[in-house]
């Protein structure tokens, strides 16, 4: 989905259009889900987080400024929620509890499962931002605070690792 279309949808939502909100969900849920999954690594937490993020989009839509960066706006809400949630848990949960709290997640023969297994959190984010959100490497660099060259090389390396790992699991 391109920036203009996304911007238009957000403005419709800002004007109170609930159908536009549902369309936004349909068109951005993959990107939001994959992005959040890099933080949580399991279905349950990611699903909860997805709901909260869209809830926040609704309650905070008034702050969206026309013609700015709609993808960044959504992703920042997702990122802040994920970090805040993880920090909260880190404070509240002992290390032992974290270790035993194994939630179901994507199996090892799925793309998501393989990504989780062979890519670092940063590499997963770079791949998700490029493939699902259509960000260019330069823009990803600005989001993640990395030089463009670093993003390009990390992306290439990540794709190579991903392809090799998928071959091994019988792509």
């Amino acid at each position, binding site marked *: 989905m391109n920036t203009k279309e996304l911007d238009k949808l957000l403005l419709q939502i800002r004007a109170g259009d609930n159908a536009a*909100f549902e369309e936004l969900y349909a068109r951005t849920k993959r990107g939001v889900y994959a992005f959040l999954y890099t933080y949580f690594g399991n279905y349950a937490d990611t699903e909860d987080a997805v709901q909260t993020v869209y809830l*926040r989009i609704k309650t905070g839509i*008034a*702050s969206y400024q026309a013609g700015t960066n709609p993808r*960044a706006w959504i992703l920042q809400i997702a990122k802040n929620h994920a970090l805040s949630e993880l920090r909260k848990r880190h404070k509240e949960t002992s290390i032992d509890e974290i270790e035993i709290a194994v939630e179901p997640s994507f199996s090892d023969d799925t793309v998501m499962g393989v990504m989780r297994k062979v890519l670092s959190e940063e590499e997963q984010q770079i791949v998700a931002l490029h493939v699902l959100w259509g960000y260019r490497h330069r823009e990803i*660099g600005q989001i993640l605070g990395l030089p463009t060259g670093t993003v390009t090389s990390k992306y290439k390396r990540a794709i190579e690792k991903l392809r090799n790992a998928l071959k091994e699991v019988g792509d």
Partner: protein
Amino acid sequence: MKSWKKRWEEELDEKIPELREDVKNQPIVECEKETEKKPSAFTLFFANKKRLWTAVSACACAVLIACIAILSPLFFGTPSAPSSQGGVFAVEINPRVAFTVNEGGMVESIVSLNADADVILSDGRSSEIEGKTAKEGIKIYVDYAAKLGYLNLADGDAVRVSSCGKNTQLSEVGNALQEYFRERGTYIAVIGETLEAEGFAQRIGIDLSQTSGKIAEYINTVSEVFAVREAEGKTDAELDALYRTFVSAEEAFTQVRGLIEKNLQEAKAKAESVQGLYSFNQEIRSHEDNPYRYFADYWELKKLDKEYSDALNALLTEMENKLNAYKTTYGAEIVDFATLTRFWEEAEEMAIESVFAIFSDLTAEVFDENPSFFLSMLEKIGMDTSKIDEIYALPTDFAEYVEKTSAYLQDRYAERLEKGKAAYEAVREKISVKDYEGYMKKIVDEYGSLEGYWNAVKK
């Protein structure tokens, strides 16, 4: 065979749930129409934050006042429900930064406000600060500033921390910094100030003529890096000029000089090492216990493998150790006298002292007049001069500007870290609370106020 991208999309579609009913039914919180009036202190306070969550907070807070009745309890129950307990800090030394602190009292983001702060935050150092409490985060930042020599630890200096909003942490931050300086035994005055939104915006350089929406728009897209923000929207030609404001010709030459000095020192040490080996081999050759005195050197004696005196054996062992050390340090093996002679002649040919003499008084202007002459001299001593070419090359587009600036900042960081090491690591006696307070009082007596002191030493 399906592409992995297609497979990925299908897996996601299968897994992602429908929107929950409560989310679907949540009313959309519509914004009040933006007006051109000057933003209130309250909205500006939130608009001054860089991250988007804060923009969400800002609007939610504004709406909270205007339309409290339409908000559902769920809104208040979400983990990061906006409140007025977060805040913004500006920390000024010479490097200047702004922090945003979320409702949980944790640093949400840090943004550099000048080139010196870019050096401190280069290479993703902000991630060490984000997520910490305000006092921890600011302490980490100030510690980096001290390490890099931005604070005069030996003779005293000042740090000004300004905060904005209903923030109760300024005194905690101030106390933590004072404690840090007392522990390090350095008299650095910590000046704390609470500002109204307008004053704070001025301090961090936000244009107050903008509407609150436009300020939020600016902040929402801002990069953490000052040098990158300055470059946004510039043409390639303007980028060159801007790059030179960060990396001036003089500064580029300073970098080049640093490289040259480092290489010359290494070349000198290598030459001295070869010369030392040559002398030591001569000592073995002329040793009175050497059965083939003046004819057999270290390598020949080893080859003959005879019984030698303890004294001669000790020299042979020492030579072996020296040769091993040379190999480890310079990656080159000296296998016989011919090799040693060749290395020695090369060291002589380099006339390392004369190269030192030529480069010791070199200025940027002289270097610029005939760079190829100087580069050829440096190549002669084995220096890889491609790094110098990189330093002088101007960026061709924004991506390259970001890359080069980032590399430049990281180099400056490493350089300052090295230079500031001695002052930072110097052992100083801890300062008692009483002595520190006495020092602060003296400043106030002398300068009329802490602000007066700040203006005197920093402006």
